[in-house]
């Protein structure tokens, strides 16, 4: 794993360097113009957030079923990344919205459900931080609840009336727009994996430190 880390960093850095060049070269959208280019890092940040939600949810299920400490460490690490990538999505969305819709924030189904999902994982982290002993099992249930919300967030634009672009936008993109989008998405997913490995290392080190303190007391 440690051997793969440096090549992975180089690859992700290269993807992040190429992405802006392709984004600048991509055509403008006919109704929104230049501001639509926010889409090329707004959408990937949500994809990275959804991936982190799934990792946290699945790791929480494994932890609840088996009690494995490694699964719990992965769940905490990915829950923190849900908050990080969700924050990028929540901040870049209004920057797009003010130009496209004329308002910074509208309580439309996509934005609201995404905010609720983000808050669910904020509550997960608060529970882990202040919940005391045994809170990890309760937090795992919160992560599972968060994971079940993802389909509603994703299809909210198709189910309810909203100003937000629908899911069909991505599948109907021409190659000139699709290429920068998917390259940027791969860059964000790669960044998620790198950050996940770093954050899991921190959590594993904390578990080791706890064990050492117990050994010192004995």
């Amino acid at each position, binding site marked *: 794993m440690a051997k793969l880390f440096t090549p992975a960093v180089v690859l992700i850095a290269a993807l992040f360097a190429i992405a802006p060049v392709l984004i600048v070269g991509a055509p403008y959208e006919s109704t929104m113009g230049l501001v639509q280019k926010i889409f090329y890092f707004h959408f990937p940040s949500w994809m990275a957030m959804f991936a982190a939600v799934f990792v946290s949810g699945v790791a929480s299920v494994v932890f609840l079923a088996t009690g494995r400490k490694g699964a719990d460490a992965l769940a905490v690490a990915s829950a923190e990344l849900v908050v990080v990538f969700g924050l990028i999505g929540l901040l870049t969305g209004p920057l797009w919205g003010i130009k496209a819709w004329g308002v910074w924030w509208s309580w439309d189904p996509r934005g609201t459900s995404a905010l609720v999902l983000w808050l669910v994982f904020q509550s997960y982290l608060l529970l882990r931080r202040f919940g005391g002993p045994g809170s990890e099992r309760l937090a795992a249930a919160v992560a599972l609840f968060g994971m079940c919300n993802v389909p509603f967030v994703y299809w909210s634009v198709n189910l309810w009336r909203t100003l937000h*672009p629908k899911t069909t936008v991505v599948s109907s993109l021409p190659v000139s727009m699709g290429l920068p989008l998917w390259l940027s998405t791969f860059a964000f997913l790669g960044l998620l994996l790198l950050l996940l490995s*770093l954050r899991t290392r921190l959590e594993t080190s904390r578990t080791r430190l706890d064990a050492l303190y117990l050994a010192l007391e004995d």
Partner: protein
Amino acid sequence: MRKAIAFALLTLCLCLPIAAAAQSPSQPPKPAQDGFVPIDQLAPKEELPAAPLVMAAYVIAWLIPFVYVWSIWRRLDKVEAEIADVTRRIAAGPRR
């Protein structure tokens, strides 16, 4: 014949404003929801207000991961220093 011409003129008078209204861009186009249509050129006046927003979004997308990586390194350094300290204390044995 006169009636027919009068009827045609009346119809034309009624239809013209409707056709003109349909052609005139009185309202800005609605932002795309079902699919994005690419165009090559952008009106120069439109580029200015959107550019700071795009730049701000780009800065956010870079800055947040950088700050997060810095915070992980800081926390990791602290925990590893503590591990080294506790390991040293365990190796030194119990105090008398």
